Each structure stands twice: as C-alpha cells, then as structure tokens.
C-alpha cells in the first residue's frame, strides 16, 4: 500500500466521513487517494475556511473535525483556524503536505517549518518521515485530539512519504506512556466540595465550555436542580442549561447580565465547572467573587489555580465528576438566595431601547430566536454580533452556539456554520455576522452554494466595526479611527446572488419577521439576510476592561 492509501484507510478506521480542505503540490498523492475513497471531501475556497469548517463540524457534532492543506502557504493559511480551535479546546486533526524529505530544510518551493509554526497552537503535532509510522501516528493524533482536554493535532506528511510503500497494520490498542489523561475526580476532594455546598447559603455554579465538550449538560442540570443552585454561564458554556430554565442566570463577565455578575460578587461558594477564568469573565481579578470559596472542576490541571485562587481543585472529566456530585449532592437551603436573585432579575433585566422605527440589532437576534424557538445552531462572528447573540438568543441545547471564544476570530462564523450544517444537515444553521467580519471569509459562499449547504447568514449591518467603535466612543473620545465602513460595502444582496445564493435586505422593523421566515425556508442553497441596523447601538451592560464585575456601565438612551 502507498502512504496515501494507508492514510485513507486509517481515516476510515477513525470513522472519518467528511473532511474539509484545499489541494496543492505536496498533497497530490493524498488527494488522489481520497478522490474515490468514499470520504466526502469539501473543497473550501481558502484554507482558513477549511480549518474553521472542520472546527464548526466538531463543535456541532462532538466528533473530531478533519481538514487538509498543502505545504507552505496552505499550512500557514490554516494557522488562524488552528489557533482558534486550540484556544477553545476543539478536537481537530489537521493533515498537511510537506516537501519531500530530502528537500526539508533547503528552503524548497512551498516549504515552511509547519510543525515549528504550529507547535504553540496545537495540542500536539507530528512530522512523519516513514510510511510505516503513518498508521500509528494518525491513530495517536485522533486519540490525543479527542481525549483529555481536547484540541487540534497536526500531522505533517512529506509528499514522498505519501508515495512510498508501507504496511497498513491498524493497532487496536494504543498505549502512550507519556499521555494519560485523568478521568475520575479525587473522591476526597469531591466530598470536600459537597460539604462546602451543604454549608453554603449562596452557592453559584459557573459552567463553561468544558461542560459542553464533555457532554455533561444533562448532569449539570440535574445537579443544579437537586441542589437548587443557580447557574451562570461563560460564553462557551451557553446552551449547557436552557435559557428559560428558572436557575439560568445568563452569561457573566464583560457583557454579562447584571444579575449574573451580581451573583458572582455575592456568592459564598462558586462551583466553577469546565471554565478557565478568562479575563473577559473575571474582570479585575482580585475583586472577582470576593466573598466566595471556589471549587474548580476541570480536565486540565493547568487551568486550575492559574488565574484565581482555588479552595478545592478537582481534576477530572466533567461528566464523571458531576455524576459523583449528584450521588453526594446535599440540599442546601438556598431559598433566600434564589429570592434575592429573582429580585435582581426583575430589577435589572437585559434590555435595550425599543423605541423608534429603526431596526435594532438586539431585536433581530430576538426575532430569530422567537422564529426558531431556539431550535437552531447559531454561529457568530466576533464583536457586537457575538455579544448580542449571547445576550438575546434563547439557547435551548448544548452545541447550539458556535463561537470563537478564546481567540476571538473574526471570519470564523461563516465557515464554521458550513461545518456545523454538514454535521447537522437537518438543522437550521445561522451565522449571525457583522458587516465587517462577514467579509473576512465571504469567499466560502461559493463552497456553500456548490455543496448545497443551506446555511443562513444574518448580517447586522451597522456600517462600522461596531465593537471597536463602541470602545472608541467610550474610551477614545469618539475618535473613530479606521472603524467606519460607511459607503464602502458591496451590495450584499447582489453579492449573494452573484454566488448563486439567495439575498435579502431588511430595513424596516415590520419586514424583519416575514423575510427571516422566507430565508430560513431555503433548503437547497445558502441565504444572506442583510439587516440595516442602527449604527450607534452599543452592547450593554459592559464592565470596562480591568474593572470589577459590579462596575457595570449601562447606556440606555
């Protein structure tokens, strides 16, 4: 068997049914072997699109996403996509071609040190120089990517290795002496945590992306209900408990809900589950949760104690630890605390100025949420569109929000939505975009049209790079340096049509619902819905960078 055939057979053993990629000189043998392999190959229009699509596929399905690119520029174009997946702990296997082994180090045509470049943004990477190492390496790559704290793993394969003859012997068992993720939480620590909970008057769960990646939402919900503990979420944790659940407190942090952030400031026991205390969540770190003891559950020991002091660290798989929590769950009396929170919810709801004829971006998100009943997979770009989605879309299920949380990658949402739609062909998949970010990977419209992937893109067009403009308004004396896009945009409706997609424009509040319904009904092709929204709308509440979570700015006009 040739190296390429070995790769394809191994991918099949790993149950890969679809991959995203772009061909090139150094992956010709592999592309040739994939051509009639039965594995669906989705040709994107840019390697970055392939990486984000594989990422979106993984986030929506829970399976490992796979993408492919050639050496040199192919590999470097993947870099943003790999870093995005790395920051959010998304399981991905990336295959890259490399120049022939005898040329490595010679500055050959389309040569870069791919493993060197991607070392700090992958969970692990490999350069395979012998065709007989291919099976074990790729098998290891899938194992490492999907276990422990998941992450992207890159396998760099020189073109001559793809052509050389080798043996295909798939090892049923995989033994890695240097990689042994911990799954079971320490029983004593679990006991300590539950003892603290029993004594707590004001407990609070903060759930992050780890709950979703571990498929632990059901256990989380049961545990919260059994102990009557309210649940606040990080951006990555949205969907792990339904928005309309009485114990749901919304998102915390910079653009979190007031009641969520107040709960953080008042809680006496924080159970942080699968989150890593990013600065956007904590605000000023030494004023974060000042009254609380913190129990931190995470699969990654390095995330525990990195940013905040922790009373009870528990390393383990979220679902298994939550299961143990459930078995030992106390029944603390939280009625006073829940009443206090209900009061905050009543007094400080998420809100915006509904007045006037203008189309508000929040209203667009709310309408989309109402029409779909929250039963959709929503991806976002990065900036205001992302925060309004987090605030106003009523997520019902895990894996229904696909958003670049850690890296904050503009241009992520659209290709990620394509990947999500491939993973969930029957779902309604919508990318909520801004007029800036959608243009960072707009070329993937061609992919979606060609592959008949019916993703929808709702562009909240405020003719500016809104989040940066908001910071300029608040902190840079309204000097709008390089953020105004007025008069620069293409006609998005015609653009969609030029690609063969459906294009709609909404300018009036009264038109929104019927146009959205029409666009969502498109099943054979993608659709763009451009919403001309009020340009000066800001995301509130907001905790200025470096401020404490109870120093929220509210800007109701």
């Amino acid at each position, binding site marked *: 068997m040739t190296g390429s055939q070995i790769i394809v057979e191994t991918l099949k053993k790993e149950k890969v049914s679809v991959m995203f990629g772009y061909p090139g000189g150094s992956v010709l043998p592999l592309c040739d072997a994939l051509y009639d392999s039965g594995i669906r190959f989705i040709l994107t229009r840019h390697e970055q699109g392939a990486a984000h699509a594989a990422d979106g596929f993984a986030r929506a399905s829970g399976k490992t996403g796979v993408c492919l690119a050639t050496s040199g520029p192919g590999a470097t174009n993947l870099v943003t996509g790999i870093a995005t997946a790395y920051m959010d702990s998304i399981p991905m296997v990336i295959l890259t071609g490399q120049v022939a082994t005898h040329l490595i180090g010679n500055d050959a045509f389309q040569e870069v040190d791919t493993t*060197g470049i991607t070392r700090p943004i992958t*969970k*692990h990477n490999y350069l395979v120089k012998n065709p007989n190492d291919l099976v074990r390496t790729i098998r290891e790559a899938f194992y490492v990517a999907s276990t422990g704290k998941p992450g992207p793993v890159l396998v760099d394969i020189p073109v001559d290795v793809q052509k050389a003859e080798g043996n295909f012997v798939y090892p049923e068992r995989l033994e890695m002496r240097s990689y042994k993720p911990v799954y079971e939480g320490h029983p004593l620590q679990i006991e300590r945590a539950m003892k603290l909970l029993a004594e707590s008057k004001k407990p609070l769960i903060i759930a992050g992306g780890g709950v979703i990646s571990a498929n632990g939402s059901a256990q989380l919900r049961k545990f919260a209900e059994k102990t009557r503990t309210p649940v606040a979420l990080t951006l990555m944790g949205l969907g792990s408990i339904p928005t309309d659940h009485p114990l749901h407190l919304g998102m915390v942090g910079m653009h979190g809900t007031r009641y969520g952030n107040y709960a953080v400031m008042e809680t006496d026991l924080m159970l942080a589950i699968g989150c890593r205390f990013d600065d956007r969540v904590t605000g000023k770190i030494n004023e974060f949760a000042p009254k609380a003891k913190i129990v931190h559950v995470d699969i990654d020991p390095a995330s525990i104690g990195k940013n905040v002091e922790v009373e009870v660290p528990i390393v383990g798989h979220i679902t298994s630890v939550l299961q143990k929590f459930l078995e030992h769950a106390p029944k603390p009396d939280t009625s006073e605390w829940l009443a206090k929170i209900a009061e905050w919810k009543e007094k400080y709801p998420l809100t915006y100025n509904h007045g006037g004829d203008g189309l508000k971006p929040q209203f667009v998100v709310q309408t989309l949420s109402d029409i779909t009943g929250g039963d959709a997979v929503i991806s976002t770009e990065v900036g205001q569109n992302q925060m309004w989605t987090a605030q106003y879309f009523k997520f019902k299920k895990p894996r229904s929000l696909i958003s670049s949380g850690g890296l904050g990658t503009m241009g992520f949402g659209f290709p990620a939505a394509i990947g999500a739609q491939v993973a969930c062909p029957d779902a309604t998949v919508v990318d909520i975009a801004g007029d800036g970010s959608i243009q960072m990977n707009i070329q993937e419209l061609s992919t979606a049209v060609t592959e008949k992937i019916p993703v929808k893109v709702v562009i909240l067009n405020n003719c500016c790079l809104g989040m940066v403009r908001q910071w300029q308004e608040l902190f840079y004396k309204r000097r709008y340096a390089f953020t105004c896009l007025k008069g620069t945009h293409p006609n998005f409706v015609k653009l969609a049509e030029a690609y063969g997609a459906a294009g709609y424009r909404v300018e009036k509040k009264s038109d929104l619902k019927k146009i959205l319904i029409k666009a969502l009904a498109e099943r054979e092709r993608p659709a763009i819905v451009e919403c001309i929204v009020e340009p000066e709308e800001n995301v509130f509440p907001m905790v200025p960078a470096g401020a404490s979570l109870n120093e929220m700015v509210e800007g109701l006009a």
Partner: protein
Amino acid sequence: MANNDSKVHIISVTVENRSGVLARIAGLFSARGYNIDSLSVGETEDPTVSRMTIVVRGDEKILEQIYKQLNKLIDVIKVQDLTSEEFIDRELVLVKVHTANGQARQEVMQLVNIFRAKIIDVGKKTLTVEVAGSGSKVRAMIEFLKGFGIKEITRTGRIAISREFGK
C-alpha cells in the same frame, strides 16, 4: 519578574527521545515568560527516553504552572522538582584564565589543587581549567578565577539526580 519569593529550582524532566521535543520545551518557557537559568539534555538508561535538567527561577505559583504546563506536553513522561527533596547536583565548567606571569600561574595552580579541579590546557599566557562540582563549588571557583581575568568560559549547566541514601 523581580519577586522576593523567587527561588532557584532544579527540575528534572524525562521526555520521549524524539526530534522537536527540545523546541517544544524551550518554546513553552519563552511563550509563557518563564526564565531558564540553564538546560541540559541527554539520553538516559533507556535510549528512547531523554532527561532534561532545567534550572529555573520563580515563586511557588510560577513553579506550579511550569510543572503543570510541562506535564501537559504530550512528549513529557515525568516532571520532578529535585529541589523539593534530597538531591546531588553537578556542573562541568571549562575556564580559560589569563596568567600574565609566573606568579599568577602559581596562584591559579594552587586554586586548582584546593578545588580539586584540573588544568587541561596550557597556553603562553593562559591556563585552561576544568572544574566540576555542585553549584556552590563552581560558583566559588569562578569567583576566584575572575580575579585573574577570565578570557573565555563554557559551562554545561547543572544536572542533578535524587539521593537514594536513607530511602
């Protein structure tokens, strides 16, 4: 990173003996802003395993992160902070020292005797000294030799191993 709690730690890391592992470890330290005093690598009794001895400076919090981040690397088999237990350390240093006249030469040779070092090369105006020993011994020897004027110095970095005595 001027921190009063900052202490020197000798960390022994066993890793898979593969290409790229050194870059991975060095990259981790530079990306996260940890300071390395020295780093030495060599094969162990098992040829598929290498041992890296890394001398770092940092407070408890930084050390904990270094320990966890190293453990997170897929190629890392075991991380051990030798300074948290009984250990023996050695460093090998070669020093080319100026000896302008006979008297300086005599003095250097006396020092070499006292420190149980060795003269390994003789030039017209220099002596090259080999000194091996613990961190403090090597430090003291270098301090004395500085008085004569050091022309060139090369050092292996410290290596260390845990003590079996009393175990």
